[in-house]
């Protein structure tokens, strides 16, 4: 950057700039709106709807969408809309918990592999390669089947398989970052290896990782829904979207709404996180910003 472009004191901070760019992007705005809606619905579910998500009512089985039941009722007489709204909770919890597991495992392993190199890197990366060579579907199904059903076990099963991509991403970022002069400068002021890794290298690599995490939440939600759909995840009567999809599958011909709306909910949610993740990557990656400015 030349001196003319240098900003005067008091101009916008990095965060403000990031926020401004995020708002300017339409898809990002849509993604943000979807995620916010999801959070609001999840938190305030009992206030948003007056129906019970699990209580069966045999007086109103398979009602078509109407004013009272906007998305109809299922084969046990439960309001589909209510179940979808409560399902937001499961989607969010599963998506965030799984991503947190991925992040911690992936970031630590990637950081160690990239920073230390030599045999540390060889061991970690070969382990990742072995994990990558096992088909994810098989691994997830086996793990979920082994652990048994339940939301918690879905989180563990999906959490155990998805970190590989993070490890590779973080390692690649660290490999290029550790050659930067500012890392040498940090060493020159007397920082220890651990401090350099977590305080200097990690934040610099975090931009792409955070962006990928948003995409990862989407993938985690999809995976969890898939396992639940297969009967290996959330068990009835949990209003989890994948399980609802499985429930409604048999009634597709007579009551299309039971399976269709949870499916749409999954789609919109995944789309929201993907939009958001794309925008985040454009915004948060300090190197991408450098490229734009040069």
């Amino acid at each position: 950057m030349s001196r003319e472009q240098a900003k005067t004191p008091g101009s916008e901070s990095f965060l403000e700039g990031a926020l401004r760019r995020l708002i300017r992007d339409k898809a990002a705005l849509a993604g943000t709106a979807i995620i916010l809606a999801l959070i609001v619905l999840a938190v305030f579910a009992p206030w948003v709807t007056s129906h019970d998500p699990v209580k069966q009512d045999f007086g109103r089985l398979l009602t078509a969408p109407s004013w009272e039941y906007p998305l109809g009722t299922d084969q046990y007489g439960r309001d589909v809309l209510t179940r979808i709204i409560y399902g937001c909770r499961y989607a969010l919890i599963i998506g965030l918990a799984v991503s947190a597991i991925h992040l911690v495992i992936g970031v630590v392993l990637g950081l160690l592999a990239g920073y230390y190199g030599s045999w540390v890197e060889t061991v970690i990366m070969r382990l990742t390669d072995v994990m990558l060579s096992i088909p994810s579907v098989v691994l997830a199904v086996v793990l979920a089947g082994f652990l048994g059903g339940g939301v918690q076990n879905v989180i563990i099963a999906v959490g155990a398989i998805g970190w590989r991509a993070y490890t590779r991403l973080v390692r690649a970022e660290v490999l290029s970052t550790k050659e930067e002069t500012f890392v040498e400068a940090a060493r020159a002021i007397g920082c220890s290896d651990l401090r350099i890794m977590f305080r200097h290298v990690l934040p610099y690599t975090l931009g792409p990782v955070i962006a990928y995490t948003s995409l990862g939440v989407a993938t985690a939600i999809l995976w969890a829904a898939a396992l639940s759909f297969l009967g290996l995840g959330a068990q009835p009567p949990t209003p989890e979207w994948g399980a609802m999809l499985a429930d409604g599958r048999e009634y597709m011909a007579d009551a299309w709404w039971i399976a269709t709306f949870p499916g749409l909910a999954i789609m919109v949610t995944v789309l929201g996180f993907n939009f958001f993740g794309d925008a985040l990557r454009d915004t948060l990656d300090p190197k991408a910003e450098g490229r734009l400015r040069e």
Partner: protein
Amino acid sequence: MAHLLEIDDLRVRFRTEFGAIKAVDGVSLALKLGQTLGLVGESGCGKSVTALSIMGLLGPSGQISGGDIWYHRGNDRIRLSGLHPRGKAIRAIRGNEVAMIFQEPMTSLNPVFTVGHQIMESLILHQKLSRPQARRRAVELLQKVGIPWPDKRVDQYPHQLSGGMRQRVMIAMALACHPALLIADEPTTALDVTVQAQVLELMLQLQSELGMAILMITHNLGIIAGMAQDVAVMYLGRVVERGPVREIFHRPWHPYTRGLIDSVPPLTGPVRLKPIPGSVPELRSLPAGCRFRPRCDQALGVCAEMEPVLKEVAPDHLAACWRC
């Protein structure tokens, strides 16, 4: 005057796919308290490697294979070359007693932290200051290195500053803990000429204020003439001539030093510059005898057979040439 740093017959080797390369091959230097030693030479002559070995920052492929680096702290003598490069002892010295300024102000600052944060780090690390104390010190330091609105700048990110300002920030970082020795590795190469002059002026002023010694690494003889008391000229991993600045500039002995001086445009008017013929040979295929012989216009028969050693040609003035 007492010595602060003594380098004695330092040898540094790098492992490469072509075998070991001797980047520094028997360098001896001495730096006095509060004085400036200039280290000059072309790219690849080992000046930066010498500096990095003082800091213990050679990296995994580099290794000190011989010689000693002594650092004097009061009456103690610490053998820097014997400290573990990742150990506590050297980390307590780095940034605290010996600080370094790098060539590239653009890449030496971490883009994801404010400049204040980066100055505060060594204060918190070495002087155990609290965050508010460190912040106050950071603002003072920014003011000291001549950055306007230091209380605003302290919260800005490196990309919001110009190149000259970033180098000033680097200097503030280096001086945060009042080091006894400042190693400046081509601190002004990446800056334009007027900013260069300002930064050098600032370094001189801070040196007289704080009394630190400076090891000034550069390929620019003009900078040496303006800043240093002593100078060492390096060629291919060896010191070929060293002595007081006046001596070296007025009575250069070594043909390489003379070549360097002749290739600087004089201010007196247009003169045809005399470049040094040829180019630097690769470190893997060094010529036998004197390393400079293939490019030397005054080579003797003995130059092809034996490598000259440094000998005194005038008081304190040493040169390694068979013609001396």
